[in-house]
């Protein structure tokens, strides 16, 4: 046992000898943290787990957002048209509305991770990382669609009823009023919430590790399971997510300010 211990100390000592003198004279605790940083990022080119994983995380997030917005708009339009129908809505619309409601109930009523497990192991059974990414993206998109639909619906509902009445009184039909008057105003209320959804999505994609997707979180897990540098690996992981979220938040606030300025 002691020989093994020695060998390890040698390994760390060997690494230490390549470092600047201030670190060589630093307390052992500091040296340890730096050695963990070295093990986490540099040794065996481990950083590529983070960069490769980051690519997968970003692809899954953006793909899911696109799917989510498409589904969200469709559902919101179906639901709003159904609810604002003057007469009894046609059968097709009523069926679509019922399906939309079912979708919203199921997606919002079950945990993300369960949806992912079902999509992966029962519905899509993906093979290989490429198919896994597709499966995860579709699942996150389906999940996000339900939330985006409600974001859009509440954005539409936030517009004063008088706007709809003014549009209709000029002779616009329901669809035209939506298109020219309600939606352009609603978008200002929708975009910030959509931005939050994007941030939520980015963080939520980390649950795809359970189906074996090599995303950012998985990258850190792999490093931990080879080096056992738990502390530094997971804090590095958290830092990467945090930087991403902060960058997104900043972008969104710039975007929002632009939107507001266009009004004045």
């Amino acid at each position, binding site marked *: 046992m002691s020989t093994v211990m020695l060998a*390890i100390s040698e390994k760390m000592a060997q690494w230490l000898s390549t470092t600047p003198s201030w670190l060589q004279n630093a307390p052992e*605790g500091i040296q*340890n943290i730096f050695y963990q940083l070295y093990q986490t990022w540099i040794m065996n080119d481990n950083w590529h787990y983070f960069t490769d994983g980051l690519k997968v995380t970003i692809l899954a997030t953006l793909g899911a957002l696109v799917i989510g917005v498409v589904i969200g708009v469709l559902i919101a339009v179906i639901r709003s048209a159904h609810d604002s129908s003057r007469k009894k809505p046609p059968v097709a619309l009523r069926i679509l509305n019922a399906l939309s409601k079912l979708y919203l109930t199921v997606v919002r009523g079950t945990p993300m*991770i369960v949806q992912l497990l079902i999509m992966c192991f029962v519905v899509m059974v993906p093979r290989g990382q490429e198919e896994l990414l597709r499966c995860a993206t579709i699942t996150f998109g389906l999940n996000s669609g339900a939330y985006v639909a409600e974001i859009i619906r509440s954005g539409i509902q936030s517009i004063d009823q008088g706007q709809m009445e003014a549009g209709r009184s000029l002779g616009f039909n329901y669809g035209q009023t939506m298109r020219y008057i309600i939606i352009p105003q609603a978008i200002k209320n929708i975009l910030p919430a959509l931005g939050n959804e994007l941030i939520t999505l980015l963080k939520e994609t980390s649950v795809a590790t359970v189906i*074996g997707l090599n995303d950012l*979180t*998985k990258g850190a897990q792999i490093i931990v399971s080879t*080096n*056992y540098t738990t502390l530094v690996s997971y804090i590095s992981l*958290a830092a990467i997510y945090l930087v991403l979220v902060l960058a997104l938040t900043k972008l969104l606030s710039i975007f929002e300010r632009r939107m507001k300025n266009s009004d004045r």
Partner: protein
Amino acid sequence: MKVNRKWIAALVIGAMVFGAGCSSSTEETSTESAAQTQEETTEEAAEEEVQEEVAENDTTSEEVAAENVTLEEGMLIMSTNATFPPYEYYDGDTIVGIDADVAAAIADKMGLTLQINDMEFDSALAAVQTGQADMVMAGVTVTPEREENMDFTNSYATGVQVVIVPEDSDITSIDDLQGKLIGVQQGTTGDIYCSDTPENGGYGEENVQKFSSGPLAVEALKNGQVDCVVIDNEPAKAYVEANPGLKILDTEFAVEDYAIGVAKGNDALLDALNNALEELESDGTLDKIIGEYIHE
């Protein structure tokens, strides 16, 4: 009281199943060098994790006085990943298996009360480094990388890594694994071996799919999402028995020793554990426990 505990345990298990993907991130609260410290309080950890009291505090135990070598006085906290039959798995609400029984016997020898915390495999290893558990027993194989961050006792059991394939698979020996999609449990030695570069005897990261538990990897195998699963022999037998249409290749993938992992530098605990293991081996307890679970 007992009933309440069981309910809480059941709830926590449920929560952990749902939150499996993120549970491993709870360890980052430590602000000190994880590999060195073990004075972190275990209170939060103990509350969060499933608690199982397997052994009662037996003060009549003969030798090996536990002079406060553990995190909590009178307690021996073990972290594990209870999806690994027959080493550790749930029988009802209780974690049982070779590791659980050996741990109970060790605790008995040391005059301590055993508490088992169930978590994911990676987290179970990390828990001893971050001071959330005294020891990890989860069919842990000793590897150089692991030794760099934790200390290990002498081996108490031998594990064999095998390959599970569908009965009609064209993989007939481990020589056929090249270029196939291999399923593993994240962080296990099977994962480490297979993920290594071909020059080092592995199959390359891109050919290995890492699942958070063995059963998920086997499920993926059944679905055709992977071509084979490399995993420890004993759980493999249990999985194959439970899933018709799967078989274990005759050739072994690797043979390795299981040991108990403790925080690096905790020699007092390490010695105490080694002494206890030695006694258990010489009085035949170890063989008896293994024989209970593994019938050749």
